């Protein structure tokens, strides 16, 4: 049993401290509400642990510097919010094709554009998946509490190191700014990227993937490997290639290295789903409101249940399919603080097996449990 200690923390602070706990030694970013406390906390705490912080000139630079830092062997992170997330998109793709471990936190706020900077929303769920051009794997975690901000940030580092890719932590302003007492463990297992076993030499192939994991071991810059990193499609030797076959193999491998393990990555919380007929799928702050909804509906005799994906991408297919096959689901509800994003992924997976309803709220105010409950009552009483 691990010893636990309670601490009162803010969500963003928990994210910064979780990152340091995970072994982050470099943070680069550009301030933006409601993520700025992450930068502030990193600037305070990182140097105490021998790490460095830099405030760059914009979000693109924040992403670029993080990726550059990671190539020296550091565990790195950058954090932002909507407008900054849009700016980072090109380099997210760079991190994915060049296979650079990096944690990217995005605290969603009202958009589009400057929108309502201090109001919560969940408008970046699809941007997280499809924002950068081209095909790429996406791992995106989604905390619903301050404790999860801490623990899923650590998990994000572990996944970034394991898969050699950019891993996102996506949540909303509510979770980022809320304060909660958190029970921390003192033994969080940490993952470190695989480094090449062979010493530097002319035969070193920086992108030769392990046949099992499909992930190539990664050398640190400055160790004598003298290897090339590029955003161009490349062969195992890291250099651009014009071979259609090689390019196809690269894109397929970087997608497959995550897809292959997607089933074991799923991270969900279930509330009253054992016998539920009306399933709510909700994430981030909306999931907290939905917990109340379920309790209220159960009191009224409606068999409601809730699935909370803590990893939005890859989509939690297995859990949803299991619910669909075990339960006699009459309807699925996806409440989101947007005009309908995650609901599309749900519908795709459900594929007509049961009606899927979206419940939107784009007021910039936190979802009330009744908004969700009323909609379910409307459908359930039909």
């Amino acid at each position: 049993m691990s010893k636990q200690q309670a601490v009162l923390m803010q969500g963003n602070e928990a994210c910064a401290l979780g990152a340091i706990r995970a072994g982050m030694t470099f943070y680069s970013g550009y301030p933006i509400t409601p993520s700025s406390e992450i930068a502030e906390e990193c600037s305070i705490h990182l140097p105490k642990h021998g790490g460095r912080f830099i405030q760059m000139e914009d979000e693109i630079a924040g992403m670029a510097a993080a990726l550059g830092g990671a190539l020296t062997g550091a565990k790195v992170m950058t954090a932002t919010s909507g407008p900054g997330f849009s700016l980072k998109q090109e380099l997210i793709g760079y991190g994915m094709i060049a296979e650079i471990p990096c944690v990217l936190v995005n605290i969603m706020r009202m958009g589009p554009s400057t929108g309502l900077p201090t109001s919560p929303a969940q408008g970046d769920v699809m941007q997280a998946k499809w924002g950068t051009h081209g095909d790429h794997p996406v791992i995106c975690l989604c905390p619903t509490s301050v404790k999860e901000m801490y623990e899923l940030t650590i998990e994000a580092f572990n996944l970034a190191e394991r898969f050699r890719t950019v891993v996102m932590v996506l949540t909303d302003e509510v979770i980022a700014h809320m304060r909660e007492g958190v029970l921390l463990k003192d033994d969080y297992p940490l993952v470190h990227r695989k480094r090449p076993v062979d010493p530097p030499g002319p035969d070193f192939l920086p992108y030769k993937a392990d046949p099992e994991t499909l992930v190539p071991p990664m050398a640190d810059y400055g160790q004598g490997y003298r290897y090339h990193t590029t955003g161009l499609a490349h062969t195992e030797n890291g250099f651009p290639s014009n071979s259609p076959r090689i390019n196809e193999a690269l894109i397929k491998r970087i997608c497959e290295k995550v897809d292959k393990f997607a089933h074991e990555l799923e991270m969900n919380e279930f509330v009253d789903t054992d016998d539920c007929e009306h399933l709510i799928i909700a994430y981030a702050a909306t999931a907290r409101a939905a917990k109340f909804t379920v309790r209220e509906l159960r009191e009224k005799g409606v068999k409601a249940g809730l699935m909370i994906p803590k990893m939005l991408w890859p989509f939690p297919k297995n859990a949803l399919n299991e619910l669909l096959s075990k339960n006699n689901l009459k309807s699925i509800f996806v409440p989101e603080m947007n005009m309908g994003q995650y609901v599309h992924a749900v519908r795709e997976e459900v594929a007509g097996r049961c009606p899927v309803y979206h419940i939107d709220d784009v007021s910039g105010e936190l979802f009330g449990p009744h908004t969700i409950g009323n909609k379910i009552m409307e459908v359930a009483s039909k």
Partner: protein
Amino acid sequence: MTTLDYLRQDKLPHIWCAGCTNGAITSAVIRAIENSGIDRDKTVIVSGIGCSSRAPGYMDFDTLHTAHGRALAFATGVKMANPELNVIIISGDGDAAAIGGNHLIHACRRNIDMTLIVINNCIYGMTAGQYSPLTPTGAFATTATYGNVDRAFDLVELSKGSGATYVARSTAYHAPQLQRYVEAGIKNKGFSVVEAISTCPTYFGRRNAMADPVKMMEWLKDNSENKRDGAAEYTKPYVLGEFVNKTEAEYTAAYDREILAKVMLKHARHPGDQGQEERGAE
């Protein structure tokens, strides 16, 4: 060692056109690296996107070919995460002064210990000849078929005004001079900018009556003159020389001295004592 020893010879021949001087400038950079005596295995060469940015791919070092305009931002991360590494950046005029212009002035401002070589061919080479922020007014380009009305940056003045502590300009025609400046830039403990004016007969030359590579070299010679002490005015468009060479606080050293050293000392801790414990002290 010869220049060839620093090249990835299996990656040759290069992609550059006949008459392009990216190769001459790359050799000057390599000789400067050798003369500066820095550890090759502790040296990272970074570039953006463009013909010029392909240079690191041929250089046998740790090399980082980034995204268009972002070389300096990636490089800043490399240097900041591991200040022991020597960081040299090769960038085009579009890469460094258009899309990457903001990163340029901020790298200058921070005075972070890196050396930037801007290969200025006065045009966007990779995308086949559109004007750049360093295309002279009146010159022709595929997006300036009536003559360029934009005014060009003076990279030296821009870098100087932004705080770079070593600033110099030379050309591919003056390769030995260029090599000396790059070497001095590498030796400077701060941010160094060396503008290397180059030739693009294919995309700049052809539209500006210099399709012949020799003509372009003559253009470099005829349009440049050396900086002279006390000279108030110059008649040629490009003045070559060292314009800034001074010592000022270097960024990573300042961070380590003013922040890391002080804060770490105060919070000397036991292994595993991470993250949450420090909060009580705040």
